[in-house]
């Protein structure tokens, strides 16, 4: 994976680079906001790690410019302020995730992996985590090469959960994506469907977490 780190503190940057390289990623670093903005206009990255408080140009501006150009590269914002506001994490703000300094490096790698998986799944049609594999084109999930026997609804739900890996989806959001306008979704049915899918995925690194009253979130246990 090719990453860009935009961070002006050398010590922190060194540590991040060291950590991510050790995991096999290729990583570039920019210390200046304007330089990073210029670089992003012609170079392609898989993930951008963006500090907010930068010399030259603020992280917000860089992010805004990227999205204005139609650049959909996933961005994780790194900030020293705990009072994160909706300009970054809101629906239309443009950042995919954020981390408050001082962050846990393992958490950072995990978030990067989740983003990479989401992106890879969308572009290559194949999602894999450990022994688990899901082929979107064939709508077929398998573990260690053995195909899983799944009903059509379960496959649909799996697709939805994979598209939103690491994100909390409310029951209503799941229902909206799962059923057409004509069908009358029963929230109860969704609970049962999720329970069935979770049983199918037992033994795979893919897990679905339920938080009653809040919704569902899929994550890959290997990433932790």
């Amino acid at each position, binding site marked *: 994976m090719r990453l860009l780190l935009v961070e002006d503190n050398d010590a922190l940057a060194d540590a991040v680079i060291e950590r991510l390289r050790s995991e096999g990623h290729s990583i570039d670093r920019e210390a200046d906001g304007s330089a990073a903005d210029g670089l992003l206009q012609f170079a392609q990255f898989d993930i951008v790690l963006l500090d907010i408080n930068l010399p030259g140009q603020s992280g917000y501006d860089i992010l805004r410019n990227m999205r204005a150009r139609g650049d959909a590269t996933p961005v994780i914002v790194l900030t020293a302020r*705990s*009072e994160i*506001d909706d300009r970054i*994490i809101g629906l239309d703000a443009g950042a995919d995730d954020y981390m408050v300094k*001082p962050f846990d490096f*393992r*958490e950072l790698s*995990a978030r990067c992996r989740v983003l990479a998986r989401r992106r890879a799944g969308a572009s290559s049609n194949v999602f894999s985590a450990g022994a688990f594999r899901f082929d979107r084109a064939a709508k077929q999930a398998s573990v260690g090469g053995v195909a899983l026997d799944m009903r059509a609804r379960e496959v649909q739900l799996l697709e939805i959960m994979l598209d939103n890996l*690491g*994100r*909390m989806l409310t029951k209503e959001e799941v229902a909206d994506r799962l059923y057409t306008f004509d069908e009358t979704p029963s929230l109860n049915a969704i609970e049962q469907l999720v329970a069935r899918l979770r049983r199918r995925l037992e033994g795979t690194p893919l897990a679905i*977490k339920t*938080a*009653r*009253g*809040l*919704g569902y*979130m899929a*994550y890959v246990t290997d990433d*932790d």
Partner: protein
Amino acid sequence: MTDPRPYSLQRRLLISMAVGFSVLLLIISWLLWTYARTAANRTYDLLLAGATLSVLERVTFDANAPTVDLPQTAMDILSLAPEDRIVYRIFAPEHGEITGTPDLPLPDGLTLSTEMQFYTADLSEPFRFAVQGRQMTSPTGRDWVIVQVGQTLRARNEQQMSLFLYGIGWLAGVSLLGLLFVWLAIRASLHPLRAIEGALANRSASDLSPLSGTPPHEIAGLFEAINTFIAQLARSRKLSEQFIADVAHQTRTALSALRGQLDLGQDAASDAALRDRLSRARKQTDATVHMTNQLLANAMVSHRSESNRLMPLDLRLLVRNTLADLLRERRMRDVSLSFDDQTAPEDAIRINGDEVSIREALRNLIDNAVRHGGAANTIAVRLMREDQDVVLVVSDAGPGIAPEHRAAATERFRSLDPVTAGSGLGLAIVRQVIEGHDGKMQLGTSRLGGLRIALFFPRLLALLLAFAALPSLTRAEELVIHAAADPQAMRPLIAAFLDQYPEQLPQPTITYVDYQTVDLYNDMLDDSVPVPDVVISSAMDFQVDLVNRGMARRLNLLTAILPPDWARWRSELFGFTFEPAAVLYNTNTLSAGDLPRSHRDLSSYIRDNEAALDGRIGGYDLRRSGIGYLFATQDTIQSVQAQRLMETLGRAAMRPYETTALMAEAVAKGEIVLALNVIGSYAMARNAAKPAIGVHFFDDYNLVMTRSVFVPKDAANPEMGEAFVAFLLSDDGQRTIQESTPLIAIRPPADAEATPALHASRSDTSFLPIRLGAGLLTFLDGIKREGFLRNWESTLRQTNAP
């Protein structure tokens, strides 16, 4: 909670004194008002008395019924109150009404007597009356004749007001002086407070010693309170110093531990030992990071709660988003978290809150639950509505806090469990947030056996505002003008009025009805004729009579456009032209140099030229022409020669004409050679097409009349009427009159083309304007008018007889 606005003691005292003075002033005002009323009545009752006596004196017995020749003096006396409407009535119990307004109210229990009585009664507005009787010898014995004269109260009210204002002005001055002394006294007695102020102001910030000195009794309490506060401040500062010391201690200790582990790691003998040291250093770092975060959060929350950032927000959405965000963290994987909001989904739970602080508080609560209850803790978050509050409850299945420790748990640096070793700031932060929201916090035991924390936020009640739609006001307007004026002259005025109307507004529709003066007067008194918006007439006396009957509306016109004093009455009737009466003569027959210089000379001139002038003098037919009658009656007031002149004219066989135009025509043709008291002469003077006509003015006096206009009280569209009157009197209207009509403006624009003879003489004292006012009512009296006309007719007939 907002602080009440600061106030000044001095001002309070001053205000209460001022209120006291005002009450006094109010009482005195009332007395003064009553006194002024009596004084004004006493003054103006004299006018009524004078008028009544002068009328009474002119009552005579004619054959077998009483009659009266209304004296001009009576009206002139009453006109000393120039703005007031007048009514009168003369009647005899034995003979009924004689003249004037019939059935005017009489005082209760009137006894026939020669004593004058005054009283107030309501007609269309309040009137003050004088009534007096007189016994006269009649063929059948002695009969009573009663004269009743009434006047509206405007002049009295003004007099009363001016007396009142004069008195109250002085009183107010004295009161202000009194207040000044009060102010000085207050200043003096507030001096000790200033001393305290000085002592506090000059203090250095570090000086927290109590104030010294002996205060007066009244402020001993304040003095003591200040000292108590200073003591509290000192304590609080001690606590704050303690906090900083604690922070320093905690941070340094944590960092020392970290450094110790790292030092040991550096010197580690084996890789295994090194890993162990690093692992400990890592744990120590986590604790230090957590503590630093909490310290900063604590500082941030306390800063935000001081800087009042509350805004309406949906608490459920905030809680849901915060929880969803938290759940993404790896340490939350095994926590069983549920969210239960017991409100209908579409029903937002709105509070006035600070999003950032509430998020921080909720994070701390969840964090505490995970930290103290283990990674597999069960946490239940609930949102409920309770009366006026929204309650956020976080329960967990952890160890909880024993009731005896709960009070201490929310204090800073009170971590109750040395093993899980929180920073000791978590609950302190939460408490600070909830206090910043005017809410409260309750600690208890959850059903799961752990801690239950409930945060109560005051609920925000929605306000509904209803806006009523306002009707549009832009419909086209209509203006109805009833006028006894030359339509040729009025047309350019109406066109100019429409021209100055803003284009974006719909043009008003104008209905113009042309009248003769008498018909207009009669129609105005006829209830069945619809009331117009504007009434214009050249008959000044009729207009005054209509206004005197209370039919006109008061107009608020700009002072700058008002006509001269003589051409306006009661802010209701306004003259807009300047029209002198003149002598017209045929220039082929008479030469200007021979014409008489004064009214006195006119009689002798006619007698001297009897041959040339016999049957060739024209005048108005007084019975048919309102203007003629007005000029003729005014002449009798101005000139003692009037009766003699009338006789002379009768001998010279004066020919009566109904209108000005006919008379001018006759002069031009040479049918007559001299026309007297002609209005509209200016037009002829300007008119080069009639070269045979000359205009002549006298040196002693020349009467001037004005066309006048008013807006009736019952007009359908009085605003439009007022706009039209304002236009007639405005600079634009006056310029139009001067330049586009045969009339002469009453207030001609400075640069207007001058009509040489008139313009030059405008300031000439020989031009004698007839004043709009109650004085014009004398000759409208039925008996008076009939008498005057009979006299005129008989003079003409008698002397005309061959």
